[in-house]
């Protein structure tokens, strides 16, 4: 895969170079683990400071500043600290972490060991989803190679600091991507997310000890923060949206794939039409899912007016929205996990929602009432609508079910399952009402989960 000129590759710099292999020799040849040595020459607090200065925000979905997350760690309790890498990448449309793990696993190992040193973790875990068995194998191999070179394990590089890294494979549940569900899963329990308060991982995480959970991409960025210094790194991208992001582009575009772009230096239009090669001939953009299937949908042709957080007014079409953290939020959605799904006018939008609803109903853990019952109810309704029994009241009913879920659940899966329905109805109510008029049309062969 050749790099597009609008791309700026930091994390995936070498990943697609011919001859670049996931073994340690290749990584070392490309300057690998130099930053680990650099970090270990610094004090842990200094590394934390650099990460804070870099302004790097979590790439898993919430976009929370990593440096601040690390600051929340409860260090007074005297309990051991754990670091967990969330490699349970399962938001539909997202396939960026997979590239890192498959093509450059040592970058993750290095990023993790630097982070572990910075927060003085006693033990580190990579929680990798069950559906990435090859990735788990590669990581395991990378860990063994790194241990042989004393980049992890006992007394790392003679620093006196020791930390083991363990690969933990999930068992194929989306909810394990929720950090407290993930923690329960590592503890060997059913992945029921914990109630917050009191179980904030930074205070009461894994085994009730302070724990940091970061995304794969976020931890890899730590390597480059150390390499360039936090201040310099923060110059990448735009203020408040520093660094690069890997966007997973899928759907009805000519060139779907993963693209690493400096934050805010390109727009959704650039990604879809320039980098992604545009839609298929004769097709129009019907809808855009800007950050993974749980993010609120945007309708093709929409215009957004308002003010950014710093007061700058904006007037954007869909194509003008900058690719960063804050802009999708400013238009009422989110960049989430960076999964951009393009939907052209060839599909029935109700069927799109039916498919999304089927996913969230299937993945609801079943712990708390609104998400458990609401997600399946919404699935049942949208499936019925697609099977030729749509009713005029369905749109309003769906929206009100969504309203009864969002904000009332233990974890963010409540929002994740409610937002698609709420936004699809808000943006495409006409299509849902129309569906009830053309009940004769049966859904095609799109298999629901």
């Amino acid at each position: 895969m050749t790099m597009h000129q609008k791309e700026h590759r930091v994390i995936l710099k070498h990943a697609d170079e011919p001859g670049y292999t996931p073994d340690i020799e290749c990584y070392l040849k490309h300057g690998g683990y130099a930053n680990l040595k650099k970090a270990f020459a610094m004090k842990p607090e200094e590394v934390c400071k650099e990460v804070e200065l870099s302004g790097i925000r979590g790439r898993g979905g919430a976009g929370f500043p990593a440096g601040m997350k690390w600051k929340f760690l409860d260090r007074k309790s005297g309990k051991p600290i754990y670091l967990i890498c969330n490699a349970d990448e399962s938001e539909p449309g997202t396939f960026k972490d997979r590239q890192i793990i498959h093509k450059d696993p040592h970058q993750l190992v290095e990023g993790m060991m630097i982070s572990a040193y910075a927060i003085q973790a006693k033990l580190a875990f990579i929680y990798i989803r069950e559906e990435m068995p090859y990735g788990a194998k590669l990581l395991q191999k990378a860990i063994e190679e790194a241990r042989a070179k004393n980049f992890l394990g006992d007394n790392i590089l003679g620093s006196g600091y020791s930390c083991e890294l363990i690969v933990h494979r999930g068992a194929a549940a989306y909810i394990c991507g929720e950090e407290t569900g993930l923690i329960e899963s590592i503890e060997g329990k059913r992945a029921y997310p914990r109630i917050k308060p009191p179980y904030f991982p930074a205070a009461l995480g894994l085994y009730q000890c302070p724990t940091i959970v970061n995304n794969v991409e976020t931890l890899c960025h730590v390597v480059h923060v150390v390499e360039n210094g936090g201040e310099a790194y923060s110059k990448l991208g735009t203020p408040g949206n520093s660094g690069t992001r890997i966007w997973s582009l899928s759907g009805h575009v000519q060139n779907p794939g993963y693209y690493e772009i400096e934050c805010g230096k390109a727009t959704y239009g650039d990604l879809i039409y320039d980098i992604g090669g545009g839609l298929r001939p004769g097709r129009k953009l019907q809808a855009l899912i800007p950050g993974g299937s749980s993010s609120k949908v945007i309708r093709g042709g929409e215009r957004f007016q308002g003010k950014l957080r710093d007061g700058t007014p904006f007037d954007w079409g869909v194509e003008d929205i900058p690719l960063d953290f804050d802009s999708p939020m400013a238009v009422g959605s989110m960049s989430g996990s960076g999964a951009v799904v393009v939907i052209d006018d060839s599909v029935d939008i109700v069927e799109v929602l039916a498919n999304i609803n089927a996913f969230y109903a299937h993945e609801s853990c079943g712990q708390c009432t609104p998400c458990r019952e609401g997600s399946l109810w919404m699935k049942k309704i949208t499936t019925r609508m697609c099977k030729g029994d749509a009713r005029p009241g369905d749109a309003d009913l769906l929206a009100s079910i969504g309203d009864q879920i969002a904000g009332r659940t233990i974890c963010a899966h409540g929002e994740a399952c409610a937002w698609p329905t709420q936004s699809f109805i808000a943006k495409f109510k006409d299509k849902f009402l129309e569906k009830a008029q053309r009940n004769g049309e049966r859904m095609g062969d799109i298999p629901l989960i």
Partner: protein
Amino acid sequence: MSDAKDNLISIFIDDVEVKVPAGINLVDAAEMAGKEIPHFCYHKHLPVSGNCRMCLVEVGTPGRDRATGEPILDENGVQKIMWMPKPIIACATNASPGMHVRTQSNIIKHCREGIMEFLLLNHPLDCPICDQAGECRLQEFATDYGRGYSRCAEDKNVKPKRTKLGPRVILDDERCILCSRCVRFCSDVMNDGVLGFTERGSYSTLTCFPGRELDNNYSLNTVDLCPVGALTSTDFRFKMRSWFLKETKSICTESSVGVNTVVNSREGVIYRIKPRENVEVNDSWMSDSGRLLYKQVAMESRMSDYTIEGKPVTPDEALQEAARLLSSGKSAFIGSANSSVEEQWMLAQIIKKTGDSVPCWLVAHVGEGDGFLISEDRTPNFRGALLTGLTDKMPEDKLSALGAAIDAGEIDTLFSYNECPIAAGLSVEQIKKVKFIYMGTHHCDASQYAAVELPGLTVFEKKGTFINQQFRLQRFEQAVPSEGTLNDIKSLSAVLAAVSSAKSVPECVDSIWQAMSQSIAPFKDISFNSISDNGVLVDGSAFEHLPFVEGKSLHYEPKA
């Protein structure tokens, strides 16, 4: 207790100021203020899981400037309340000073309606044939907070029915609202994690782990905990509608723990026993074995006839004959730690009047303790025997000294109350050698040799008190009437009146307490009606030297 009182803080529930202990959760705080925050999964004696989301409330705290820590004031100079953007669950939120809670706002009403709609979505609504109907939280809250109509046009989920979880508990998964109370009880209270969920989302199904059974001796607590009719008791199932049942406060006689109970009966028939909350004794729990004790009321071996030498006589004739036998010659008494405090006191008076120099014999009933709610001493009231002066030493396994006294011809009459002398180690020959008076609830191996038989009442047919292992005086009430059998106290007072020259003897629980409160120091100022539902601790320090058999159990530590 005084600590909690010192730490009272002010919070505002629906704008009404209430004083609550610091750190208390908002469900309990609201309850103290007389407000109900509806909930399904929260239970005072279980870890918080926060999954039902029924207890969502709006919470605000007095605003403070983040940088300076100064209070943020509104235009009137009053500290501003910073309301949280989303409703939060009351069960997992602790009261903090100045906290404001809204339990009745439109948002909260909408939350509760939503939760009720979701919970009823896949619920079978088979209340007419459901045992829980009438005492069902889902039913109650559906009335209070539900919409009253269904918007669901889809098919309901189908789940397993009539699953046998164990010998005493049956599960209907379709009724289950997945609150996880039973799961938490097994894993966190009993340390016997046999229950769990399989499947995901709305298809989640409660079940036992493969190859396991819910068969511990506390399994029926899951039935009590179940807020709906998902878990039902094999014993009680389909026997009686709950609204017909009368509730009587009682005490479990299984062991010296003195578990607080409620006896459910209708028209003189007991249908089940449930635990009654007492945070000093049994929290909200009781054993399965204790729940079966009501069956003794209608057992075939139940004694009903007053007899002299095996021939039925009137109660009065039998009692006079017993008094005559006790007054002539030397008598020995076997008392019981199964009797109530009042009965033990009456027996002690009779022993005093018959001039017996032999102390009252007490038989030990010792079993294995479970460290929870069944103690080693399998009688409910040994401490009562100590305080009423019936004995001053530990009960004995075998009454061999009494047997020797009979063999030596030192005993003419043996009065045994609620104890079988043969089980206590006496031989048939020894019993035949004396005039044997047996007073008890059930026939025993020895009763056929009795010169006089005096039927007695079970704990369910009388009222009285027991003193448990903590020296906690606890009251039980009469649940069902006794037909044709005199109250034990009436019988004993008749005997006492006959053997003594006293003009009047106490004939009821209240008059016995009048007498006891004057003559027994630890009972000073206590009357039967003054004993609260949680019981009263009485001074047992005079007996500290005794080697009590009880080991550690819930809320009880043996003295080192």
